């Protein structure tokens, strides 16, 4: 069953189009991540589903019910705020119980549910603390508990991991995904971190300038980006501007009539090897010659700047092997790890 459906959402701030004809759908139990750079409109999308944005056009349906003109309090969607927005004058228990009190549940029922959710998130022992006495990770869990305890139709997560330390963030990703799967709750997840989206989402929508450019499963977004923007935004890449003749010489089919081409290379998948090393290569793989012009030691790997011979441009590739400055090298980019756009 479709939980969330938006049809042609429009929102303008003066000349800026924050939402430009945005339509998405989320199925029961599905986690849709919306990614894009800041200013792409992803947060506006989330906030308009929550009801905090007055739209200039379009419709929003939740479980088939038209909620476009409903105020935020009547939508039964629960939002997780980026800065948690925990109420400083209430304890953890009171924070989590708030939504249940509003729904006029009995005292025992509220106690039961709050205790369940706090234990589910491993924060049962913090029930009587004030938010100011909690660590960032604990606050994040309380905010999550407050959102899911009301059993909303839809969960809205606004950059839920962005306020955590990089190390904790990696661990929480897995926890968050398995927890949301266990609850089987439809979720709209906004993040600017494409890697986070790839690892956590069932489907991903890529936004730019208020438009959705592509929607698909993480693998599809990564392997079959529909345009230059999506290709470049997802993964770690180098974009090389090249003339059509140069590209044709490499044995790649070039679209007709293009004056200049953009070649997106997934740098994280490119392999650097010594010149004249024997390399297995299919006809659709790309083999480029180059010279090492810069190196940066990163610990496990070294980051090399390679000047490409055929394309007259520099790219950056990490490798575990040791190369010297000015050493001629070869770069192998497998089929599906490079994309060509006019």
């Amino acid at each position: 069953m479709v939980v969330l459906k938006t049809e042609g959402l429009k929102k303008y701030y003066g000349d800026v189009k924050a939402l430009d004809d945005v339509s998405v759908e989320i199925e029961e139990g599905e986690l849709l991540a919306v990614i894009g750079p800041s200013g792409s409109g992803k947060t506006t999308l989330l906030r308009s589903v929550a009801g905090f944005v007055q739209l200039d056009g379009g419709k929003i349906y939740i479980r088939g019910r038209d909620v476009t003109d409903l105020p935020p309090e009547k939508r039964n969607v629960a939002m997780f705020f980026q800065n948690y927005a925990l109420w400083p004058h209430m304890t953890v228990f009171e924070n989590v119980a708030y939504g249940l009190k509003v729904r006029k549940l009995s005292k025992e029922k509220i106690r039961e549910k709050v205790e369940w959710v706090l234990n589910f998130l491993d924060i049962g022992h913090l029930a009587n603390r004030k938010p100011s006495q909690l660590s960032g990770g604990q606050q994040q869990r309380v905010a999550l508990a407050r959102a899911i305890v009301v059993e909303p139709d839809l969960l809205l997560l606004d950059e839920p991991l962005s306020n955590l330390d990089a190390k904790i963030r990696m661990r929480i990703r897995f926890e968050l995904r398995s927890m949301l799967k266990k609850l089987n709750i439809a979720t709209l997840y906004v993040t600017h971190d494409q890697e986070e989206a790839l690892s956590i989402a069932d489907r991903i929508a890529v936004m730019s300038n208020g438009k959705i450019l592509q929607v698909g499963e993480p693998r599809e977004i990564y392997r079959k980006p529909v345009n230059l923007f999506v290709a470049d935004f997802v993964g770690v890449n180098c974009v090389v501007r090249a003339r059509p003749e140069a590209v044709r010489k490499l044995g790649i089919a070039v679209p007709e009539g293009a004056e200049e081409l953009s070649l997106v290379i997934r740098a994280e998948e490119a392999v650097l090897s010594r010149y004249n090393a024997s390399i297995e290569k299919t006809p659709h793989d790309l083999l480029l010659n180059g010279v090492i012009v810069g190196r940066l030691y990163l610990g496990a790997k070294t980051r090399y700047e390679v000047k490409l011979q055929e394309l007259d441009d520099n790219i950056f590739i990490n490798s575990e092997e040791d190369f010297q400055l000015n050493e001629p090298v070869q770069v192998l980019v497998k089929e599906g790890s490079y994309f060509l756009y006019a």
Partner: protein
Amino acid sequence: MSVRRFSILKLTLKVVLVFIILMLVVGPFVGIAIWSFARVWYWPSPIPQELTLRYWSEVFRQGRVLDSLILSLKIALLTVGFSIAIAIPAAYAFARYRLPAERILLFLFLMPQAFPQLPVFINLARIFGKMGLRGNMWGIVMAHTMASLVFSLWIITATFKSIPLELEQAAQNLGASRWRVFWTITFPLGIPGVIAGAIHVFLWSMGEFNAAFFIGAPFIQTAPVLMYTASAGYNMQIASVIAIVLMIPSLLFMFVIERFLKAEYIAGIGG
């Protein structure tokens, strides 16, 4: 040697500076403090020839001093009640709502701080005179409510504005109506500012002279009006006793509310 001489010089300078500042700031109150105990005091004696507690006892005895203090207290408490009750919804609207003709409304509520208020009080006294509100406690309460509204409003508005919008949105998102959001989130978080506003209104009303004089006198006398009458009649003892009594809450509460106040919010008052 030279280092020590330098530091002694510095110390002396500092002592002199402290003395001058004390004389400038605290000095004026030494005089009225002594006067409040004086029975006979002739120049050039630095202290009164005869001391007495008679004038201080008037504060605690039935009579015009105690009456005026009680009247001022009544007026101040009523003013706090009305002023804060009216200011809270308006402050919330200024902090959170889009308003019709917002700029004009802002101007209107800032005007009493930007223009002299005395002509307004004089004409208000005239209007009240026609309505039979002159010499009436409620007339003074109304004038004080109006005049204190413009600063209690801005103190509370600033407090509401300082509460992050997300805290309200989070409650709304969980199903709470705006009314409920206000009473469970915004108001509890704004209480310190509301208290600061209330204290400030109280202190101002207790010491207010212009409105109390034109509207109340000569039929009823608040403490400041009585103080003025006493001082003008060279009854220095009574005037000084009232002055000191009125000063005490000002000094006590200053430390409570000082950190909530930006000068702009309390400006435009006085007399």
